[in-house]
């Protein structure tokens, strides 16, 4: 089992939600911080740009140049006063102009003036005033045409020299101020850089937190995904467990249903014996009630078997080509008495465009139609029950539609909704006394219809009758059912086998013996499973043919016992099952029990030969030469408008390949000779209202007749077997009468076919 899932991690969505605002908060902080950095850097860029454009660095140089130019002027002035040198008036004028130009700049450039003023603006104003005064007196000396005289220059020299301290102050002021400004600027720059670093660090931290949260989120998502995956795995396992349990339950139910039927038949036998033992009328009455209950119980068990097969998906449809008309006639034959008993009209109406031959599973289609028609009759007190059959063109291909319409009590919507549910019954709101039945019929029918690829739908209104539509895919068959193919003729068996046959039914034993001996094999017969196990221990056999239903231990149990034998030779003998029911799960059970293959009754030369060939190679399943011409007319002629022929030519032909005509004839005669006794038993069952007993006898008669190819007898017996539990007494009596009537007809047909060479009336 998977580890228990951590629920809290699965419901993590609740705890993850409050984290969402955190992410938003961090994202917002990131944005704000980034914006801060951008603003800071932008401001700094602006300051730098302004500072660059202003050329403030350049001004400091200018202040220095100003002092130099003053000193150069003073030196030139000094030299002009020196008598030993010639007076260079041009040079002095140049120096004077340069200095005055610089002073003009100082006055006009406010930034420059600010730079030189330092902290004391008034001192600079005083200096500028003094300079102006000097320039006002000196200008006339230089701007005029004449050359200034030494005397004039000397008069002003003192004033020029007196300006030195002021000029020096200007330069110093500028130096200090510029130094301060530079320091201030660097401090600001440092502050900005610090802020930027702090912001960047903060940003980095935020990014880290963001990444951590994202990582955590991803990890949680991953964990949640893993938890979900493990939950899905757990659910898958749980589902597999549940499926297995359900399957086991279905298998158990199927097995139990099957097992219940066997003791039930014993019970019915005992009841019939009891009835013969001279009971009082009161006791016979009690016995009838008991038999009715048993009958009901058997119907339930049969339904349960169907349900469990359907649920387990083990019910396999066996579609064959059938003549639709025959099928409908069989349905009608069974239903008409029921309808007549309630004085209801029953109409079967097939559309002319319905194909004659179709491929379907006749048993299951009939089962559905029986159910629908039975219900229609059951819930109608007067009027008509109609079965319409028509082809219908649907999107996914043609469909065959069976519509059962009645004029009965109808149903309300609530009932319709519950109609196909298990154990639901339409009479809950009809107020009528519940007729017998399990309530599983409609569920089974619908499941069968769906299994066929169709469905059953219903429309109804209370008091206005109901309409059930059963539709299934229409599969047309161009040809009538073909007789089984003949196996290719060949020489006598090259490999004679020693075959053990475990079979409790005498007729079947004789058929198998004849079949196997004709193929050149030796046979040894036992009547039940225990004997089979003993025989395998005692002798060496090449093959065991094992009937599944035998008194004592059945075929499955015997097979298990054989496979468990200590002797290797005995334990490994090939075993082939013989059974009348062809359910896939029966086959599966056989194979699981250790059987090698599976033969469906009636055993014919071709299917037996196929199995032998598969197990032992080509020669073992070959037929001897001279099998004879298959019998045709008059055996295949329908008698009295019945659809089933009296004798099935194909089965007879198949049998005659392995049996001499005399031998087969004696089997047929034996059956026909014993048939009156069978009729007597059937009559007794009808008289005593013993449907289960009736069914048992009919089943036995059907099996034997089928093996001998006496089709009409077999189908009548089948009608009795199927209808035993639900057909009204007079209808059953009619079927028994038909069976009896068929006996001389069949005998005549057999004689005409040359199967009964001498007349041997009973």
């Amino acid at each position, binding site marked *: 089992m998977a580890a228990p899932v951590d629920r809290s991690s699965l419901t993590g969505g609740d705890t993850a939600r409050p984290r969402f605002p955190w992410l938003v908060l961090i994202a917002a902080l990131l944005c704000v911080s980034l914006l801060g950095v951008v603003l800071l850097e932008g401001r700094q860029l602006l300051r730098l740009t302004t500072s*660059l*454009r*202003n*050329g*403030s*660095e*350049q*001004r400091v*140089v200018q202040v220095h*140049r100003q002092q*130099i*130019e003053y000193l*150069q002027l003073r030196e030139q002035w000094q030299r002009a006063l020196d008598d030993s040198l010639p007076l260079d008036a041009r040079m002095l004028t*140049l120096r004077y*102009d*340069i200095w*005055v*130009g*610089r002073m*003009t*700049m100082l006055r*006009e*450039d*406010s930034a420059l003036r600010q730079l030189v003023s330092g902290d004391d603006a008034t001192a600079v104003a005083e200096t500028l005033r003094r300079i102006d005064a000097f320039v006002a007196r000196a200008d006339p000396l230089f701007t005029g045409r004449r050359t200034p005289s030494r005397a004039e220059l000397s008069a002003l020299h003192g004033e020029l020299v007196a300006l030195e301290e002021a000029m020096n102050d200007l330069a110093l002021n500028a130096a200090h101020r510029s130094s301060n400004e530079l320091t201030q600027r660097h401090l600001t720059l440092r502050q900005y850089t610090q802020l930027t670093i702090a912001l960047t660090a903060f940003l980095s931290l935020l990014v880290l937190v963001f990444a951590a949260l994202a990582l955590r989120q991803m990890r949680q998502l991953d964990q949640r995904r893993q938890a979900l995956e493990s939950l899905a795995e757990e659910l898958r396992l749980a589902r597999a467990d549940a499926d297995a349990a359900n399957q086991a339950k279905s298998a158990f139910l199927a097995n139990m249903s099957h097992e219940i039927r066997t003791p039930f038949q014993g019970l019915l036998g005992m009841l019939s014996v009891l009835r013969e033992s001279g009971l009082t009328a009161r006791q016979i009455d009690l016995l009838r009630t008991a038999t009715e209950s048993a009958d009901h119980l058997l119907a339930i068990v049969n339904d349960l078997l169907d349900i469990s097969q359907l649920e387990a998906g083990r019910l396999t449809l066996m579609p064959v080509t059938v003549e639709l008309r025959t099928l409908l006639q069989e349905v009608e034959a069974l239903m008409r008495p029921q309808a007549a008993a309630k004085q209801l009209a029953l109409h079967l109406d097939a559309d002319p465009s319905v194909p004659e031959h179709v491929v379907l599973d006749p048993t299951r289609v009939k089962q559905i139609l029986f159910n629908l028609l039975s219900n229609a009759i059951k819930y109608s007190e007067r009027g008509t029950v109609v079965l319409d059959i028509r082809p219908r063109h649907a999107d996914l291909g043609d469909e065959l539609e069976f519509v059962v319409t009645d004029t009965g009590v109808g149903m309300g919507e609530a009932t319709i909704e519950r109609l196909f549910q298990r154990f639901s019954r339409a009479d809950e709101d009809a107020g009528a006394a519940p007729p017998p039945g399990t309530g599983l019929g409609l569920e089974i029918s619908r499941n069968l219809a769906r299994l066929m690829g169709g469905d059953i739908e219903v429309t109804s209104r209370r008091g206005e009758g109901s309409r059930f539509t059963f539709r299934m895919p229409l599969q047309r068959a161009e040809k009538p059912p073909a007789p089984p193919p003949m196996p290719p003729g060949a020489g006598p068996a090259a490999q004679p086998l020693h075959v053990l046959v475990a079979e409790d039914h005498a007729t079947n034993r004789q058929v198998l013996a004849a079949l196997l001996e004709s193929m050149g094999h030796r046979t040894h017969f036992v009547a039940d499973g225990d004997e089979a196990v003993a025989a395998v221990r005692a002798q060496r056999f090449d093959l065991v043919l094992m009937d599944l239903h035998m008194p004592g231990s059945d075929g499955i149990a015997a097979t298990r016992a054989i496979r468990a034998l200590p002797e290797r030779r005995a334990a490994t003998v090939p075993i082939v099952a013989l059974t009348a029911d062809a359910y896939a799960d029966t086959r599966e059970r056989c194979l699981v029990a250790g059987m090698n293959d599976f033969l469906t009754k009636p055993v014919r030369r071709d299917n037996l030969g196929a199995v032998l060939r598969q197990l032992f190679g080509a020669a073992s399943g070959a037929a001897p030469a001279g099998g004879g011409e298959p019998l045709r007319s008059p055996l295949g002629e329908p008698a009295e408008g019945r659809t089933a022929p009296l004798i099935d030519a194909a089965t007879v032909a198949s049998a005659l390949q392995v049996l001499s005509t005399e031998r087969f004839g004696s089997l047929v005669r034996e059956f026909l000779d014993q048939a009156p006794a069978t009729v007597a038993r059937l009559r007794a069952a009808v008289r005593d209202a013993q449907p289960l007993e009736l069914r048992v006898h009919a089943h036995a008669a059907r099996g034997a007749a089928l093996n001998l190819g006496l089709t009409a007898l077999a189908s009548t017996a089948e009608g009795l077997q199927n209808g035993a539990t639900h057909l009204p007494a007079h209808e059953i009596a009619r079927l028994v009468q038909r069976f009896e009537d068929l006996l001389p007809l069949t005998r005549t047909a057999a004689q005409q076919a040359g199967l009964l060479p001498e007349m041997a009336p009973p």
Partner: protein
Amino acid sequence: MPTRRDCLRFGLALGPACAGVAHALEPATGPVVLTVSGRVMTPNDGQQANFDMAMIERMPQVSFVTRTPWYGQPRRFTGPLLREVLRRAGAQGATLRLRALNDYRVDMPFEDAQRYELIVARLLDGAPMPVRDKGPLFAVYPFDSQPELRNAVYYSRSAWQLRSIEVR
């Protein structure tokens, strides 16, 4: 086809081939206001090329208005391009050393004269510049049309009271 400038640039190597193309610089007749010395190929006075104001006036004149750190208002400057002056002198080198009347000195790459519309301004707002107002010649970059020039490096290369250029 080699342009005149190509001839100048490769003048040392192709001297005889370009000699006929380059016009010889006429001598200065008035007072010399600008001297181009150093690697000068068409000197008019020994090893150097002397210019009087008339020669400067005769060169193609360029005029632009720009803001400067030295004047509160934008001013119009007019004069020949420095590269024209250098071409006339047949100057060829990597660095120009500018000197001013006030003994100011600054170096600029020879490339500056080629790359920028750098003029040797002789007029300020249409009037000649006296020494008192940074005259008579003033090397001015077009600061307003090329923002990358607006910093202390180019401000310092703008020499006023320009007196001489040494080509190195």
